[in-house]
């Protein structure tokens, strides 16, 4: 399937005319790198908003009787916090953001397959995000990010707005997925076979079909919920013959793959950061790539493990439990391979590397509690409790978000040509690490003892640990403030990075930072895996990238 050589006059030989003017360059840009940065900025804005919501949650829980906000407001706050973090922060950051920014460079393409579609995907995203936050004006959804009917049928008008917003962001995801699949299948540089692709591309390649297929299932479920709420057409209301459990099936058929959408690209980031800063090839390249695909595929077959308490027939539950255990094996392979990558390395503790190391430790913990939850008898105990809250935050914050931060410190020079400040970065890491663990480790214990999730008030016996968590969460928020300060400061005053500050060996580091709008002057030819530090770089045709010469092919009108 790979393009054997650059055909004269083909896509690889074709450069779009240089975008002129501020609007075409930075607003309605067709350039995948600019779109990636747009995604990252927008997602971090939403991250700040829903992070504030998280602090509202923790402030409310300082006292067993709450009192900071009313129960109703509290329910709105955690619902929007969850929805926004999943759909407006983690997924766009990892797919639209880092995906757009990095993987076309890594496979040696000039852009993604459909730049217009890419721009459209991006512009849908802030619109839907604003819609989601605007639902506060009309009574935000209260039933959590899962919005189980029938209670979501009773929700305020904002719940319909929520449906529409998530539907739209799903459309954006689907288009991104289609775009990425085609790009990876068709636009790799000559010699960039699948077994020579950097692992971040493998992560995206495993994620894109999930975006494309699973998100559509969610769209159907959301459309039905919207129609039922607005027009009274019965799908989920049991008094009219509908089935509330059906929503759970359709929702989790999307949302379990969505968990992998949120973690597989982060795996990819870690698999890039570790070899670069250990000066060592990634250990077990093929097995890591293969296990990503295995996880993505198996991700479609385990959705009902979120529904062990929903009254499914027992014989249906059993395969879901065992398949979920089985997913632990490829995940374990990855973790062991990353750990083994460190062995015998020359490890440089940059902030990106610290986040990558933190990722491995915390994600492993989240993965282990995931195995706990797959075991039905134990799940029947802790389902719907703070144990789940702890588990999902270990995976999504300790996993995905740590991956995002590693990616930010790693690729920030590629975006801006400047380095993030390492001292501030290390403060960010350590405070975040402490704050995060302080916030979420006690939740395991609280959940087992009997604290249900999504509560505005709780039994006074849990007060001590809740206060502890709240204080720790303020520490975490402070560390993230440091990160924002760091970004805003470094973007103007950071040390100039040059094209390749980390000694990275993948293709994106062989061209200037930030890259030209056409990426490569010549599309390079690839001769091997990027990760072998003892060998010269396995690329040909990159000699002129860092010179001032113009690109080999003239920019032509289409």
């Amino acid at each position: 399937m790979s393009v054997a050589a650059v055909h004269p006059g083909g896509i690889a030989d074709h450069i779009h005319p240089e975008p002129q003017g501020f609007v075409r360059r930075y607003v309605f840009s067709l350039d995948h790198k600019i779109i990636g940065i747009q995604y990252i900025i927008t997602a971090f804005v939403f991250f700040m908003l829903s992070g504030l919501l998280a602090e509202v949650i923790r402030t409310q829980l300082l006292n067993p009787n709450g009192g900071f906000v009313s129960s109703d407001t509290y329910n709105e706050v955690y619902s929007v916090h969850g929805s926004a973090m999943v759909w407006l922060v983690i997924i766009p950051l990892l797919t639209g953001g880092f995906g757009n920014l990095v993987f076309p460079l890594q496979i040696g393409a000039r852009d993604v397959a459909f730049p217009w579609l890419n721009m459209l995907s991006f512009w849908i995203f802030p619109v839907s995000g604003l819609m989601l936050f605007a639902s506060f004006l009309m009574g935000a959804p209260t039933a959590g990010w899962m919005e189980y009917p029938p209670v979501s049928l009773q929700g305020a008008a904002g719940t319909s707005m929520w449906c529409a917003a998530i539907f739209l962001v799903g459309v954006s995801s689907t288009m991104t997925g289609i775009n990425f699949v085609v790009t990876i299948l068709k636009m790799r540089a000559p010699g960039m076979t699948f077994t020579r692709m950097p692992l971040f591309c493998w992560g995206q390649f495993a994620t894109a079909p999930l975006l494309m297929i699973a998100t559509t299932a969610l769209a159907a479920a959301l459309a039905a919920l919207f129609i039922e709420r607005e027009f009274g057409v019965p799908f989920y209301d049991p008094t009219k013959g509908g089935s509330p459990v059906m929503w759970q099936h359709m929702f989790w058929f999307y949302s379990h793959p969505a968990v992998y959408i949120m973690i597989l690209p982060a795996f990819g980031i870690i698999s890039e950061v570790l070899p670069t800063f250990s000066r060592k090839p990634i250990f077990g390249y093929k097995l890591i790539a293969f296990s990503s695909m295995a996880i993505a595929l198996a991700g479609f077959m385990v959705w009902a493990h979120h529904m062990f308490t929903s009254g499914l027939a027992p014989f249906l539950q059993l395969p879901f439990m065992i398949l979920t255990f089985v997913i632990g094996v490829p995940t374990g392979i990855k973790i062991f391979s990353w750990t083994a990558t460190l062995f015998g390395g020359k490890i440089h503790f940059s902030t990106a590397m610290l986040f990558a190391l933190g990722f491995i430790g915390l994600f492993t913990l989240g993965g282990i509690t995931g195995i706990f939850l797959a075991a039905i008898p134990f799940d029947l105990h802790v389902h719907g409790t703070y144990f789940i809250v702890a588990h999902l935050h270990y995976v999504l914050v300790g996993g995905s978000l740590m991956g995002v931060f590693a990616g930010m410190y790693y690729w920030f020079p590629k975006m801006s040509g400047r380095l993030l400040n390492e001292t501030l970065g290390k403060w960010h890491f350590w405070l975040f690490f402490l704050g995060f663990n302080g916030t979420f480790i006690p939740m395991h214990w609280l959940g087992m003892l009997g604290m249900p999730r999504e509560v505005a008030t709780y039994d006074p016996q849990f007060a001590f640990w809740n206060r502890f968590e709240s204080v720790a969460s303020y520490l975490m928020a402070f560390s993230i403030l440091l990160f924002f300060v760091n970004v805003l400061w470094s973007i103007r005053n950071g040390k100039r990075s040059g094209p390749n500050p980390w000694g990275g060996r993948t293709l994106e580091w062989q061209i200037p930072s930030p890259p030209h709008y056409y990426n490569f002057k010549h599309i390079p030819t690839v001769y091997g895996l990027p990760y072998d530090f003892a060998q010269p770089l396995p690329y040909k045709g990159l000699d002129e990238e860092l010179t001032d010469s113009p690109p080999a092919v003239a920019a032509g009108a289409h």
Partner: protein
Amino acid sequence: MTAATLAHDAHGDVDQLYIETRELRLQGFLLFLISDCVLFSSFIFAYLYMRNSGQGWPPPGIHRLDVPFAAWNSVVLFGSGATMHYALENFKHGHWMRYMIFLLATIVLGAGFLAGQGYEYTHLIYGEHVTWAGSGIFGASFFTLTGMHGLHVFIGVCYLTVLVLQSSAGVYTRGKYFGITAGTLYWHFVDVIWVVLFSIFYLI
């Protein structure tokens, strides 16, 4: 210029850029159809799920759907699939007139199917008082799924009409006609979805 252009302009205008771009578009379009297929599958899952959780189908108080009419109407849609196929075949071989005739026939048959569906809806809503929101899960699943499919057919008819206009304006040549290929793929997709919907609503 249309017919003459088509006949004489063999593959001379097809360059490498077009070949590669077409490949991308084709794959992208097929992936779009796959995700659209998942959308239908989800609603079909919902329908079958609700149907099996109730007591018998159709629910009491609702008559069985009119199979003979639906069979006839389905054949109209399937026939339009066949004419679309021949439209593309004829275009590929440079028979411009036959291409136009088959394309117009497809549009007429597609519109005919929509009219038939409109008739069926009218009959259900006014004759049997089966409505979208007021007839429980039957009305919900039937009108949602067939309505969604009808919307796809409607979009298809619009798209084919645009194809007619574009073809008359000479947009497509013997080498560059991806728009027609995409239209044919889409139309076949819509037909095949109806095979499934016809089976699950009328036959089982």
